């Protein structure tokens, strides 16, 4: 029987990491996600699965430790919160360019600058449009529950290895800190070196006589070579857009209006939608689960049928741009947002909906 | 004491004419040639081959590992 436990979202990530055969976690303290490393340190997985858990001297060092481990074909991850993720973006760009299967968790907090420790979604652009330099994308999974924090940890590694590219779990302070029931995945064994040689032949495990050296690099002085890398990356991203889109629809079958929201805000919108339904207004919620690849197609389809869309976010309006791109003018797309760590309540969302979107 | 004779082979294409082997060679066997390799470097060569003792000083200091050293006891 699978274990059902009650824990914080941050703790669920730590538990799930161990269980999905993670080899190494490299972290640094920052509110509101420090429990991830605290939990890992308390569980001491190095004694059971052999997983390495190391507190680095900075988020910059941590992401580069992940780079080193991932380039050996190991399941390596790091976690941080907004300011820390900004520090990691150079490393993330290197990881994307070198096509390494690293996992990065961002438990977002209000910004910009040092900001607040309250929740936010203001790193959407950083996560989805590529926060670092160069044309690259991250697979971005947005959990909205403690269960998804656990599930997406395993999914992130699966997708990262499937496409040999970094994946990000874009969470926020609410989900990181709140406690909910969670069913943890069964323990998977860590990959052996033999499995790594099969699954990740580029891994730098030491050069046997029968192959040329493996060189993990993102440097190419000749631009033709760099261009080729970019073609390869873009082809990969098209592939990911084709096969890996994930979203949830809620009360959309007969919907005349839509709310679009991700993560914790999507759950608040569900309550707002239920309130609307009580007043006979047919509203549904579409919750993008993968922020890249963005669920453009489904939004375009619904745009033909609904009289208006309200995008709700904890930022100044970021995902709304992608919603507008998907809808392409077919129906009005309005925005309602809260900034600075303030969390919108269901009734204020419902009021905004009535004012801005309802005909 | 048995006489030792040495000889070196310089990879003249790889050599960059940096002169460090010439400086390091105790019996001054080596010098930089008037001719240049395809990259335009005046490569090192044995100007006084008889004086070479095969001590490999040149090979130790060579930054491009261009020199192969041989030695024989007569």
């Amino acid at each position, binding site marked *: 029987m699978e274990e059902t436990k009650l824990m914080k979202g941050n703790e669920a990530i730590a538990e799930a990491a161990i269980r999905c055969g993670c080899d190494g976690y490299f972290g640094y303290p920052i509110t509101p996600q420090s429990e991830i490393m605290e939990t890992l340190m308390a569980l001491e997985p190095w004694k059971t699965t052999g997983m390495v858990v190391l507190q680095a001297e900075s988020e910059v060092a941590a992401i580069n430790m992940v780079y080193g481990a991932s380039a050996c074909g190991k399941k390596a991850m790091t976690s941080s919160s907004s300011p820390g993720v900004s520090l990691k973006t150079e490393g993330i760009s290197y990881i994307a360019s070198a096509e390494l299967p690293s996992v990065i968790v961002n438990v977002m907090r209000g910004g910009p600058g040092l900001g607040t420790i309250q929740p936010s979604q203001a790193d959407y652009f950083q996560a989805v449009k590529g926060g670092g330099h160069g044309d690259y994308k991250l697979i971005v999974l947005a959990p909205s529950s403690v269960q998804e924090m656990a599930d997406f940890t395993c999914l992130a590694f699966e997708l990262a290895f499937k496409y040999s590219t970094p994946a990000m779990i874009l969470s926020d302070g609410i989900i990181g800190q709140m406690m909910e029931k969670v069913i943890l995945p069964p323990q998977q064994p860590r990959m052996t070196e033999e499995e790594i040689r099969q699954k990740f032949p580029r891994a730098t495990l030491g050069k046997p006589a029968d192959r040329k050296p493996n*060189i993990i690099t993102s440097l190419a002085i000749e631009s033709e070579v760099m261009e080729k890398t970019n073609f390869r990356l873009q082809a990969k991203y098209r592939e990911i857009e084709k096969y890996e889109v994930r979203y949830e629809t809620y009360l959309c079958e007969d919907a005349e209006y839509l709310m679009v929201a991700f993560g914790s805000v999507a759950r608040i919108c569900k309550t707002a939608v239920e309130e609307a339904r009580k007043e006979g207004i047919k509203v549904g919620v579409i919750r993008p689960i993968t922020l890249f690849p963005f669920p453009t197609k489904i939004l375009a389809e619904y745009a033909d049928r609904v009289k208006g869309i309200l995008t709700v976010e904890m930022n100044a309006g970021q995902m709304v741009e992608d919603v507008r791109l998907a809808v392409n003018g077919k129906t009005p797309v309005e925005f309602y947002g809260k900034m600075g760590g303030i969390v919108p309540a269901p009734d204020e969302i419902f009021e905004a909906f009535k004012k801005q979107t309802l005909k | 004491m048995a006489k030792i004779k040495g000889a070196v082979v310089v990879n003249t294409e790889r050599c960059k004419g940096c002169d460090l082997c010439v400086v390091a060679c105790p019996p001054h066997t080596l010098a930089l040639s008037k001719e240049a390799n395809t990259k335009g470097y005046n490569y090192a060569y044995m100007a006084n081959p008889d004086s070479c003792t095969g001590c490999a*000083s040149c090979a130790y200091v060579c930054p491009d590992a261009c020199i192969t050293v041989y030695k024989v006891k007569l």
Partner: protein
Amino acid sequence: MNITEIIHPANLVYKKPDVLNDTPMHYCPGCSHGVVHKLIAEIIEENNWQEKTIGVAPVGCSVFAYNYLDIDWQQAAHGRAPAVATGIKRLLPDRLVFTYQGDGDLAAIGTAETIHACNRGENITIIFINNAIYGMTGGQMAPTTLENMKTSTSPAGRNIELNGYPLNITDLLVKLRGTCYVTRQSVYNVAGVRKAKKAIQKGFENSMAKKGTSIIEIVSTCSSGWKLTPDASNKWMVANMFPAYELGDLKDI
């Protein structure tokens, strides 16, 4: 016995190690990098470590070491090699993991990564090429640039009030309890090359024996950055660099 008879495999004394492949190295004529690459290749070959070694080459002239030494390599972001090496060594504890860093990489942008890797006593070897200049980018001032030393970003000579003091980082690293072997060498002459090779060999052995972090600083030349011939660079180094960065073992536990 004429030359052609002497040149015979039976009489071979020295040849280029195979681990150092045939790709011509891009370093300027006379550059110390080439000598150090050759020594590392010789050591890996002599100890048969090719199958166990992973090198980490950060940004700098020597980032292209991965094109010249036939071992597995990872290219690291500028300054982050000790962190990358930590990630590798922690996950592959039985491998020989070393970083090959310039002075800008190790003592400027990567100071924190260097100090903390040493403080954790990571079982890696750090090869530290100190030529007191940023070579790859065209000769700018580095943390180890000497007072009054001219570079492209200290054209009138390094000015202490403006640019601070030359940073003798190795003296700091000695004090970190995680370091087991800290030495300063130079490949400026035959004796220096021999000692440097022994030092690198010892560093690699320490790493395999998990005795902690080994720092092998090689006080080096940069003839194009210093605008001197290779031989003149060696002489200038002896006269100016050696007093500031004294050769010898600073720690060997």
